[in-house]
């Protein structure tokens, strides 16, 4: 599988990106998640938000930031093959240790009308530069 979790960028602003991830039965991991009940894994929703956040950051010259933390992230409706996940990420602020915090949401895009709620995921996360060693304990935690 290619590790691209966003298929197209729908809206692009200096501090906000809206992107789409199509979910297709052709994606092999769906056979295991779950057998007989394929749904987009929750952590792939997080990865989609992280990759959308990277679009914001790359435009700001912050290259190759990785997911640093996730906070108060709730899962709602499932996203099934034939549906899509629309993620929206917005910069909250830059933190003293160089990481950037975001608010992210994901909604299910369905082909047919439904009265099941369309919030799939919502929460906060931070992106930070690649780091091979944990920061020293004495530095202030973000």
């Amino acid at each position, binding site marked *: *599988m*290619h*590790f*691209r979790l966003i298929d197209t960028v729908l809206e692009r602003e200096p501090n906000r990106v809206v992107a789409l991830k199509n979910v297709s039965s052709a994606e*092999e*991991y769906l*056979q*295991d*998640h*779950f*057998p*007989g*009940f394929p749904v987009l*894994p*929750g*952590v*792939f929703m*997080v*990865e989609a938000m*992280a990759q959308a956040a990277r679009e914001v950051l790359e435009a700001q010259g912050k*290259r*190759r930031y*990785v*997911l*640093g*933390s*996730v*906070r*108060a*992230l*709730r*899962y709602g*409706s*499932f996203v099934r093959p034939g549906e899509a996940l629309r993620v929206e990420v917005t910069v909250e602020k830059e933190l003293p240790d160089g990481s950037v915090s975001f608010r992210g949401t994901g909604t299910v895009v369905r082909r047919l009308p*439904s*009265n*099941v709620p369309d919030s799939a995921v919502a*929460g906060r996360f931070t992106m930070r530069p*690649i*780091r*091979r*060693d*944990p*920061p020293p304990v004495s530095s202030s935690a973000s």
Partner: protein
Amino acid sequence: MRWMWIDAIIAFEPKARMVAVKNVSLAEEHLHDHFPVEGDLPAQALMPNSLILEGMAQTAGILVGSVNDFREKVVLAKVQNATIEADVGPGETIRYDARIERMDALGASTVGVVSRFDHQTATWVDIGRIELMFSHLDQNMQGMDLPKENFVFGENFRTILRAAGFDRFR
């Protein structure tokens, strides 16, 4: 890509704690996209932190599921707090050490520590802490009829559990 983000269970204390490991290998395709050559930046293979989150979710999920002998469909409902302070590359091993913090009929909360083993220096270093909440999938959730069998704990998990010595659950 198989959806299996732990390789082996190395310790288990029923209803309390589970420790699992995952090896990171260049044979895994997704590492070649994370990250490839990008302009002037060289390729750099790193385990995506969202998949580290999944490794902890699978470790903690098996632990929670085992409390009721895998009769319930246990799914990740919330990431309360997850921090990964350092990144993991090929040739390293990730260790997930998960503990049930609180559990009742409606759901469970777990706390886990992520560590990284470097085969060159032969040392474990703690790199993160992940707190998760799990709930049960109801039969008629979201207007969908779910398959009756417990698809959450499928064959992959059972293989790992058997390899760890649990061949007595149904």
